């Protein structure tokens, strides 16, 4: 069996296609259920957001599995299969796992490092468990991906600091005031960008908002939106002296707030900081105002610079995470390898135990007069012989599972010890045990993985 990923995202498909190929959240479990019925698809999950639609699946054979997944998606969205294929990316084996880990960590998102996608992958995983579209392999892989993404977000700077202009203003304000609650915010002008910045400030706890605009009626409408007050433009200097934050976005052609206007205001403030954001183009605030003590003035370019600096930091963190992903893939492959070798070791031990038990019974028949102590000694020594005999073959099997030629070596191993039937029994028992542990009842579609290298399972 093989792991594959088939999908499209904002990099491979224009918005016209993406909006067509998008599942309503309520449709996702239904679609996953139907995907499970496709030929050669053993396990699957579906992740669908406004920027991506992806199917991850464990399939019998990659080509067949991928073909039926594409056919299913094209059929679901009523698209021409050949046209649809042009927008798709397809990954197999390690690449598919790598893609899943990248997606879950937000490295494949439009906003690098965002965490929404982690929630969406988690939801799909829950659907997979609930609707039984995932088995042993995806149960493990998705748990690993979600845990790893959380770790990546905690241990690196991938999700710290703002990457949007309006939020950058909030972040800067917080660097001056800490909490924004009870801070006096003055909104000067009713420009769209200014409103967006105020919305973010309001959302971050700044709830004392005053609006001043040349047209008083417009100021009143905006103030009502934030439960604030509207004041007349003549009161600008008075309100500025009392404010902590000023957001300016008027449509004026020249500077409205000059250094000369600000000097007496700043003097009255006795060093109390004034945070000013000039989002207007052309600018409303004379840049010389920034020379005054306690005044922190930023324009739209400054905010853009912050966003860029934060993005650079996120890119550096993304590189760090990519290195960590390599280790995760190795871990997953090791688990897969062990998944194949555990039933073999179990079968070998079972066979040895059977021989041991039968030999003891035979001895019991032939030597009925032995005392309990003598039986104990014989039993102990026979066990010791069996364990010593098995030690090296078990080590060999464990080593072989890590190697490229593991499939052939382990097949030979199984044949030498003649334990084919026992291995099959062990695999079924292990599968039942794991599925029971994860509270999923599996059906006969979840086949036992073969032992192969890489994520080919």
């Amino acid at each position, binding site marked *: 069996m093989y792991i594959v990923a088939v999908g499209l995202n904002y990099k491979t498909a224009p918005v016209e296609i993406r909006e067509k190929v998008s599942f309503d959240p309520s449709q996702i479990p239904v679609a996953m259920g139907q995907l499970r019925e496709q030929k050669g698809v053993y396990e699957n999950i579906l992740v669908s957001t406004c920027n991506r639609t992806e199917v991850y699946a464990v399939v019998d054979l990659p080509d067949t599995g991928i073909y039926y997944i594409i056919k299913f998606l094209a059929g679901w969205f009523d698209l021409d299969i050949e046209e649809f294929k042009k927008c798709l990316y397809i990954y197999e084996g390690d690449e598919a796992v790598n893609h899943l880990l990248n997606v879950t960590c937000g490295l494949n998102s439009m906003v690098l490092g965002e965490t929404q996608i982690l929630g969406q992958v988690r939801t799909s995983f829950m659907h997979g468990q609930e609707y039984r579209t995932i088995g042993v392999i995806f149960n493990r892989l998705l748990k690993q991906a979600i845990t790893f993404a959380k770790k990546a977000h905690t241990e690196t700077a991938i999700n710290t600091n703002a990457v949007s202009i309006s939020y950058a203003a909030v*972040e800067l304000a917080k660097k*001056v005031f*800490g909490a924004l609650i009870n801070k006096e915010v003055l909104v000067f002008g009713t420009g769209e960008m200014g409103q967006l910045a105020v919305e973010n400030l309001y959302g971050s706890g700044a709830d004392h908002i005053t609006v001043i605009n040349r047209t008083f009626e417009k100021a009143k409408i905006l103030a009502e939106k934030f439960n604030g007050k509207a004041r007349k433009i003549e009161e600008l200097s008075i309100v500025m002296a009392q404010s902590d934050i000023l957001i300016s976005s008027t449509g004026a052609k020249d500077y409205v707030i000059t250094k000369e206007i600000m000097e007496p205001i700043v003097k009255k403030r*006795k*060093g109390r900081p004034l945070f000013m954001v000039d989002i207007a183009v052309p600018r409303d605030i004379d840049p010389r105002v920034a020379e005054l*003590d306690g005044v922190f003035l930023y324009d739209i370019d400054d905010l853009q610079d912050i966003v860029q600096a934060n993005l650079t930091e996120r890119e550096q963190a993304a590189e760090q995470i990519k290195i960590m992903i390599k280790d995760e893939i190795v871990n997953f492959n090791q688990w897969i390898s062990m998944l194949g070798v555990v039933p073999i070791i179990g079968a070998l031990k079972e066979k040895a135990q059977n021989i041991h038990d039968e030999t003891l019974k035979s001895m019991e028949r032939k030597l009925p007069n032995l005392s309990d102590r003598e039986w104990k000694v014989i039993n102990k020594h026979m066990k010791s012989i069996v364990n010593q005999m098995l030690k090296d073959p078990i080590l060999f099997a464990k080593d072989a599972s890590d190697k490229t030629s593991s499939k052939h070596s382990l097949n030979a191993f199984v044949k030498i010890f003649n334990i084919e039937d026992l291995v099959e029994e062990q695999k079924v028992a292990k599968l039942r045990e794991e599925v029971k542990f994860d509270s999923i009842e599996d059906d006969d579609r979840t086949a036992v993985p073969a032992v192969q290298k890489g994520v080919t399972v």
Partner: protein
Amino acid sequence: METIIARLVEFTSLAYCIAVILLGMDFIQNKPKQKKYGLWILTGVLVLQTVALILQFVNSGRVTIFNVYEGLYFFSWVIIGFSIMANKFMKIDFQLFLTNVIGFIMMIIYSFSNTHHLIGNELHEQMISHLLVAHVILAILSYGAFALSFVLSAMYLYQYKNLKQKKWGQNLFRIGDLDKLEKSSGNLVVVGLPFLFVALVFGLQWAYVKVPDVIWYDVKIIGSILLFIVYGIYVYLRNVRNFHGKNLAVWNVVGFIFVLLNFFVLNSFSSFHIW
């Protein structure tokens, strides 16, 4: 016993050095793990210093704070204790490292002074009294609060500069906000000032009782009163006149420079003050 104390002090200095290096690595490269290890070692250093102080007390039969070098040792103990507490309750990045750079310098001067085993020689036994012990301890506690306050004010000025000059980067986001830095540094001065006041009162009372022919215009007395005035003005401007911002932070930095002058330099010109 003296040899044991000397080895213990050397070992503590080494551990302190490692702790400061680890904290410095976090300061430069943003390594939270190093900070965690640094904090653990620092806590160990505090414990070792406490043990050394107790041993010195047992060995000499008195509180060992009666010369400049013993004072330095006690000062570094206070700084470590305060910085660990501040790290726990204020949660300001970099504070732990920067405060302990000061503490470590104090510790190093003490370690290289080679006088810690000659304690008590400078001051006549008869001169020592409870008033003097209280005076020194309270003065050093106030200096500890001022040292921490100085670090926070210096960080305020650095962050102020970052925000003014639009220097975006790790440091801007790791250092706390101006409001928190300003409030915390101000509160520490408000806490330290009464300690300094009581220390001065006890010191003057001790001098009156124990030092015959004390010169009331002695540089140390004048310096300490001036120090009290400098911090008194800071508290007045901050709490009564409601001043904020950069100038207040600069005033606080100047205040701490005055603390260092008073501690290290003015003693040399004093006719009686040797601790």
